[in-house]
Every structure is written in structure tokens, then in C-alpha cells.
């Protein structure tokens, strides 16, 4: 396992399925990716592509009854003794995963409005996490919570700590979430659409904040978003997902400057570029994301792919992941 040692987290061929009354939803269908310490990985894709389920699989936060990880491994290197454990084998309700959640892998959720409890003060909620994972007394934990709130740029931390979430604005609540996530100094932060519910000016503040805190705490970040602009500003590496599969991955420059997969090309072309004076017509990807219950034979993107329409590609089978240039992988029959 020498190879794994430079990685903080390595996901190998992960498959997470949901068993619903209407059939099986193959939410994650063979995802492999790795995160190095201190780096930021951006996971991009449209709704229903399995990006959130991938993140929830890491922390084992999926519903127990309807959802199963049926294949693959998630190798995570622990903080203290650098021991590597497979998170897919861990009991999702056991004490081991609970010592990792919030302590070593923390998560920020999309909606700051709903992910804080309305009946406890924000201080209560942050201090709870600190006391749970550290052997310290309440006054010390409160001190630490205040310093965390200050480090996320909440000026009046001493008074905000005793406020209930409804008294705070969306941007303030998201900062509280970040303070809570970072309070135990995690080695990996999963940020699931951290700025989607926020206005652009607040989004800019939160992005700057995350970047500076990442440097300060030297943590790895897995950022999940559908906003290509946010990814371009935050990530070192990009993973593009479509229908539960990774279609392309590579460094930020590789994916944005030389996108290879027709889906990535389509995504980049379909957003209007700001400050662009030639008002060109947008080039959308035809069709929409298929029904998650449908089983698609062959290439999953076939039905929306321009190469398939022009008969340049038969799309008859799923393509393996090929390395086109060092570090730049694509899963497309056009390149294999």
C-alpha cells in the first residue's frame, strides 16, 4: 500500500445504489478519485449526477434502509497514527465513524438555513462538537468556539455565540457552519454547494474565507458544486461527473483549457462568459438528464452527445478511463 500513503483519501470503484419502490437507482456507478493532503478537489456536475451521494458515502451519512454501498473502497488516512482504514467497512452507526465525523472529516452543507438546529444557540451547537471530540472543559470549549467564530470573520463573536440561528443572515449562518466544521481541525473538509444559496457578494466573501482558512489549517477540501466559476477559483483538480460516473478528471488548467469529454465541453460552452462583447448564441447540451431509474446500455451520455448524433461515435459500450496526458483522464470512446 505504498502508493496510497501520499493520499489522504482514496476512493476506488465506489458503487452506491438506492433501492426504491420503483427500482434501483444507480446513484454512484464506479467512482474513483483521490485527494492529497492540503489540496482542493472540485466535483462538478448537474443535479442527479451523484456528486452529493459520493460525499455522503465518505461520511456514511446515507439512509440505512434504502441505500447500500455495494462495491468499492474508500481509504482514509487517520490523523494520529497514519493508519489507513476503509470507510465502506465501518459500521455507519458505530463509534469509529463517529470519531471521524466532525473531527477528521467535516462537512458544510448547502443550506445554511436548514442545517443548523433552530432550537439551540449557535454557540451550543459549536461547543457540542468541540466537547465531543476533545478532552476539555466547557469554559475552554466556549473560548475556542469564540475564537473560531472570529476566524471566520464574524466580528461580534462574543454576542453571536449566544444567538439563535434565525437571528442571523444567510451569510452569517454559512460562516457559523464553517466555524463549526473547522472547530476540530479536520484533515478533510467536504463542502457540498457551500455558496449556492448565497448572493454573489457573500459568495465571494465565503470563497476568500475558505481559501485562507485552508492555508491556515492545511486541510484538504472536496468542494461540490454545479457552478463552474466557483470551481475555477477554488480547485486544484477537477472531477466532472455525469449519471453517477466520472467522465473527466484532471488539473484545473487541463479541464478548463483542453476539455476532452463532450459533456465537459458542452458544460463550459453553455454558460455565458461575462464581459464578452460578442453576443454569441449559447450552445446548450441538447436534451436533459435522463430518468435516474432508466438503465442505459452503452455510453451514458450517448443520447445527448453531438459525436453520437453525427455518427462519429457508436456509443455501444461504456468507455474505460484513459489517461490522455499526464494527470488528465477521460472516459469517452472518442479517446480510447
Amino acid at each position, binding site marked *: 500500500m505504498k502508493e496510497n500513503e501520499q493520499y489522504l483519501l482514496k476512493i476506488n470503484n465506489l458503487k452506491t445504489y438506492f433501492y426504491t419502490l420503483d427500482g434501483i437507482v444507480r446513484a454512484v456507478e464506479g467512482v474513483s478519485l483521490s485527494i492529497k493532503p492540503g489540496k482542493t478537489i472540485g466535483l462538478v456536475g448537474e443535479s442527479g449526477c451523484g456528486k452529493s451521494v459520493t460525499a455522503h458515502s465518505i461520511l456514511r451519512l446515507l439512509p440505512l434502509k434504502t441505500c447500500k454501498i455495494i462495491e468499492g473502497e474508500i481509504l482514509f488516512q487517520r490523523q494520529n497514527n497514519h493508519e489507513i482504514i476503509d470507510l465502506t467497512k465501518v459500521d455507519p452507526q458505530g463509534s469509529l465513524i463517529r470519531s471521524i465525523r466532525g473531527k477528521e472529516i467535516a462537512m458544510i452543507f448547502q443550506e445554511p438555513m436548514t442545517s443548523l438546529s433552530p432550537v439551540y444557540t449557535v454557540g451550543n451547537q459549536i461547543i457540542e462538537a468541540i466537547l465531543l471530540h476533545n478532552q476539555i472543559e466547557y469554559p475552554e470549549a466556549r473560548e475556542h468556539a469564540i475564537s473560531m467564530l472570529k476566524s471566520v470573520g464574524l466580528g461580534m463573536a462574543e454576542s453571536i455565540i449566544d444567538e439563535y440561528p434565525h437571528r442571523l443572515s444567510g451569510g452569517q449562518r454559512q460562516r457559523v457552519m464553517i466555524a463549526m466544521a473547522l472547530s476540530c481541525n479536520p484533515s478533510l473538509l467536504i463542502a457540498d454547494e457551500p455558496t449556492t444559496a448565497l*448572493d454573489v457578494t457573500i459568495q465571494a466573501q465565503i470563497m476568500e474565507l475558505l481559501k485562507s482558512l485552508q492555508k491556515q489549517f492545511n486541510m484538504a477540501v472536496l468542494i461540490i458544486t454545479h457552478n463552474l466559476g466557483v470551481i475555477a477559483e477554488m480547485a486544484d483538480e477537477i472531477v466532472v461527473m455525469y449519471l453517477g460516473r466520472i467522465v473527466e478528471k484532471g488539473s484545473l488548467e487541463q479541464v478548463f483549457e483542453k476539455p476532452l469529454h463532450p459533456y465537459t465541453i458542452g458544460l463550459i460552452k453553455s454558460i455565458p462568459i461575462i464581459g464578452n462583447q460578442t*453576443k454569441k448564441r449559447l450552445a*446548450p447540451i441538447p436534451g436533459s438528464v435522463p430518468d435516474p431509474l432508466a438503465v442505459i446500455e452503452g455510453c451514458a451520455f450517448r443520447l445527448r452527445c453531438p459525436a453520437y448524433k453525427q455518427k462519429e461515435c457508436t456509443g455501444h459500450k461504456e468507455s474505460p478511463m484513459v489517461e490522455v496526458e499526464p494527470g488528465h483522464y477521460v472516459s469517452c470512446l472518442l479517446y480510447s
Partner: protein
Amino acid sequence: MKINNSKDQNNNIILEVKNLTKYFPIYRGFLRRVVGNVQAVDNVSFSVKGGETLGIVGESGSGKTTLGRVILRAYEPTSGDVFFRKNGEMINVFSLEGSELKKLRRDMQIIFQDPYSSLNPRKTVMEIISEPLLIHGVSRGEELKSRVGELLEMVGLNVQHMNRYPNAFSGGQRQRIGIARALALQPKLIVCDEPVSALDVSVQAQVINLLEDLQNELGLTYLFISHDLSVVEHISNRIAVMYLGSIMEMAPAHQLYQLPKHPYTEALLSAVPTIDPHTRRIRIILPGEIPNPSAPPPGCKFHTRCRYVQERCKKEVPAWEEISPEHWVLCHFSKNLHLQGIESIKV
């Protein structure tokens, strides 16, 4: 305010908003006394030419949705006037009542943000789109059916799917149903209230293209409300920037993005993320949060967060001035400031 009365200039104007204000009262206590007002739209004036798209941008709570709805008279205004051109004459929308108002509503329609909650789940697509036609007595029977079919075709949906319920459609398709419903009465003005914000990136582009095609085909005028600065720039001829109920700046799209004249516009543009990995914008981080709209700061509303603030800004309310043709600004110092536009720097 300067009103240009020369005839040929005004001929093309389809909508004129003058000093429009909308306050929502805040009630407290047993007697439901009014203790304050949320100043959602505060003394807003502008005009829209026929066939153009006026984009309205602003953060949440800036009053852009309220503005759209007051113009349609979904809300009654607190004060001010809205004039709409009908048969060559400018009619005051707020002076109409009853059947007169109903007639006017044919010409002004709305497309809503959320395609999931704006369509009745218990009605078929046929029923949803035919409702305005029935209410206004435009057509019925076979004619109605063929008109609905026509509308569905126009927005790129399959006519065969007329009898399905909204749950059978994806987000993008639902938004097309909403657009077909808005088009049913052949309106002249459509208020598009964040029509693409709830859609996925790839589908968003489809709907934007559709709206542009329909505008070219039918000569529609759009009031396009959005918080997405790149989408607004793409679709609009002119753009108005709102903050705390006031329009801070209004100019042709290109001019506003390249040469903004209001410090708020400058800060807003600098916050947009770039997708080019080699360039970055010089970020102007606005301190604090958008103030409470029931107690906006005195003087210039933006002075609490403005980095060019002077003593005068804290006391005097700036005038809504046209500093160059078509470029309106609400700022005391717009002529003296040199602000950065959307251009970014290489790193």
C-alpha cells in the same frame, strides 16, 4: 428627474415607471398597529422601449421581484405611476379598474422562478395553458386545443404530451410550460422573474436561447429579473442594478459592465467568479451585510458599505441623474470616481 418630452423619442417607449414606491407595513401587537415599513421599492423611475430587454439585477432582498410585481399590479403601489402603451397611448396602469384592468393584463404577463411550484400539479398541461385563454374568452373548443398545440410547439414541447400532468416533465420542460402559459394571450411585455435560476446549467442555456428566439419572432419586451450577472449581461440590452429598493445605476449592458459609475456596481462585478484559471478579478469585499430594508441608512443607502464614502453621502440623498446618454446613476460622486469594470487581471 428629467423627462424628455420630444415626441419621436417617446414613441417607442412601451413602459414608463415614475417615482414608484412600494412599502409593506409591519404590524405589531394586539391592535395590529403599523410599527414600520419594509421599503421594498423606493422611488424608482425608468422606461422600457418596445422590443428590448431590460435586465434587473440585485442581491436577495433588493426589491427586484417586488418591482416586477407592482408593475404588473399584482401588488398595489404605495405611490408613483406606471404607464403602459396600449393602442399608441400611454395608459396609467394604476388608474384602471375592473374590466379595463383585465383587458390590460392580456398585454403583461409573468414567468416565475420556480417551475416546480408555479404549475398546479392537479391540472394537465392543456388545462394550465388554456386557463388564460378561457378567462379572457379568447378561444374555446377545437380552436382552443389547436392554439394550445401551437403554443407547445412554439416552446419546443411535444404536442402529444398535452394531456400529461406537470410531474411528468423535467425542470426545463416545466419552465417551457410556464413560458407557453405566459405567451398564450400574446402579451407585449413579459416580466421574467429569475426564469433560469432553478435550472441546471445545460438546460439553462436552452431556455435562454428559447426566450431570445421568442423575442425575435414575436417582438416581445422583457423585464428580466435575475441575480446571475453573466446571464443578465447575455440577454439584456440595458441593465438596472438594484440595492435596498432603489435603482443605483442603469445603463446599456456593455457600458455598465465595462465602465460602471456606481461603487455598488463595481463591487458586485468584482465578486463574480471567473472561469478562466489564469485570470482573477481584483475583489472588492463589501464589509457587512445588506442593511435592514425597514430602516435603510439615511442619505445614500449604500454609504454604510461604500469604500468611497464622504460626509455628504451620510446626509444627502443623491439625485437620479443621467450622466451620459442612457447612463443613469444614483451617486453624488459618480463623475469623480474612476471605477474598475468587469475586466480581470492575468495571474
